[in-house]
């Protein structure tokens, strides 16, 4: 994880996302207009969040199978990074909604579902903090993480599709993917997803390494005393 090539790649991709996402020509669509640029920030942050949550769940499963704390460190830090992206995603989404739908919060099913999803992960953090023993915290945290993820998937992928959503691509609204996610948007969209995911991974790995160092220092202090 200490190799640096992918960090340089991250910075490059994000610089490209910022510059190209804000300056490149975009298709003109009714209502959306220039706000279509939110695609490169809002939508891609959700993609990054989902990818990081999947990584966290995989690590939770690994922890339950092996009982090694390093997997738990990965799980909690990837969840933390995902929560950061979730909050950013919901804020950028609200800003975008203000200019296209007229309100910060319009009770859209996807908006509601993502807010509930965040509640789920805040509860996960509180659960972890209420347990003091490291191994018990890791085990019960992993159990809840997997359980919550199993409820999170139908919540954000299945339920909003059963009702009309104001989101582009739902309920007769012009979609990004149907005809207007043209090559120009794609050129920024895919690099942006990779860029946001990588910076989340970077954040998470830095914190995982910090945790490992703290644990080693703690162990040393305990051993000195005894």
């Amino acid at each position: 994880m200490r190799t640096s090539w992918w960090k340089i790649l991250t910075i490059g991709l994000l610089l490209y996302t910022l510059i190209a996402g804000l300056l490149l020509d975009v298709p003109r669509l009714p209502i959306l207009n220039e706000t279509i640029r939110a695609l490169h920030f809002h939508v891609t942050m959700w993609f990054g969040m989902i990818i990081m949550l999947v990584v966290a769940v995989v690590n939770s499963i690994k922890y339950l199978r092996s009982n090694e704390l390093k997997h738990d460190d990965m799980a909690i830090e990837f969840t933390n990074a995902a929560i950061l992206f979730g909050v950013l995603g919901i804020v950028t989404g609200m800003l975008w909604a203000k200019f296209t739908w007229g309100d910060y919060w319009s009770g859209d099913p996807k908006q509601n579902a993502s807010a509930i999803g965040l509640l789920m992960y805040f509860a996960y953090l509180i659960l972890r903090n209420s347990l003091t023993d490291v191994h018990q915290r890791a085990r019960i945290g992993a159990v809840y993480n997997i359980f919550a993820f199993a409820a999170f998937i139908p919540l954000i992928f299945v339920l909003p599709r059963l009702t009309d959503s104001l989101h582009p691509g739902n309920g007769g609204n012009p979609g990004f993917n149907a005809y207007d996610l043209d090559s120009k948007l794609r050129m920024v969209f895919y690099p942006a997803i990779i860029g946001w995911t990588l910076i989340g991974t970077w954040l998470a790995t830095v914190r995982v390494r910090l945790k490992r160092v703290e644990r080693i220092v703690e162990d040393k202090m305990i051993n000195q005393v005894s």
Partner: protein
Amino acid sequence: MFKQVHTLILKELTLEWRQKYALNGILLYVVSAVFITYLSVGAKQGNIAVTTWNALYWIIILFSAVNAVAKSFVQEHQGRQLYYYMIASPEAIIVSKIIYNSFLTLVLALLGYLVFSIILGNPVQDQGLFVLNLLLGALGFSACLTMVSGIASKASNNATLMAILSFPVIIPILLMAIRVSKNALDGLDWTVSVDKVLTLFAINIIVAVTAYILFPYLWRS
């Protein structure tokens, strides 16, 4: 396995019957909650909008179910849990608790329905669908809440934790149940609701299977 589940369910029933105050307490909880709602909305019989009736009913059932199921792992003390740990497989324990709690939640839901019908009026036009929905809702609630109460019982400050852990997880089930229930209230044709009922059933299965797989890890600690 089946024998174990059978014995454990019988055990839960006997235990509940012996400590009748817990059961009576939760039944009284439902009745008082309905009555408080009735007085708060200030509705004369039949005066309340159908959507409001539906929402109030499900919120009351949700809170009563949380209260009823919350005790499933707390009421028995550590020593006895260790004893179960030695004689029964964790799968048998979670299955028996889920079945028993579904039964309990269903009883609560039916009681709530009865009291609702008496004092707030009964606008339900399709009884069959409504009761089927109650059955599915009770199953989902109990699968989700049993698992969460197992998690919460491992940590301190139980009541708050139980609520914050279970509400977000239970929302998909609650939303689907409310939608089906709305269709039943309006007396829509079954073909309209069939995909929703199936989705509700599928979510129940997902939650129950996840609980079944994860519970052994929780039980061991």
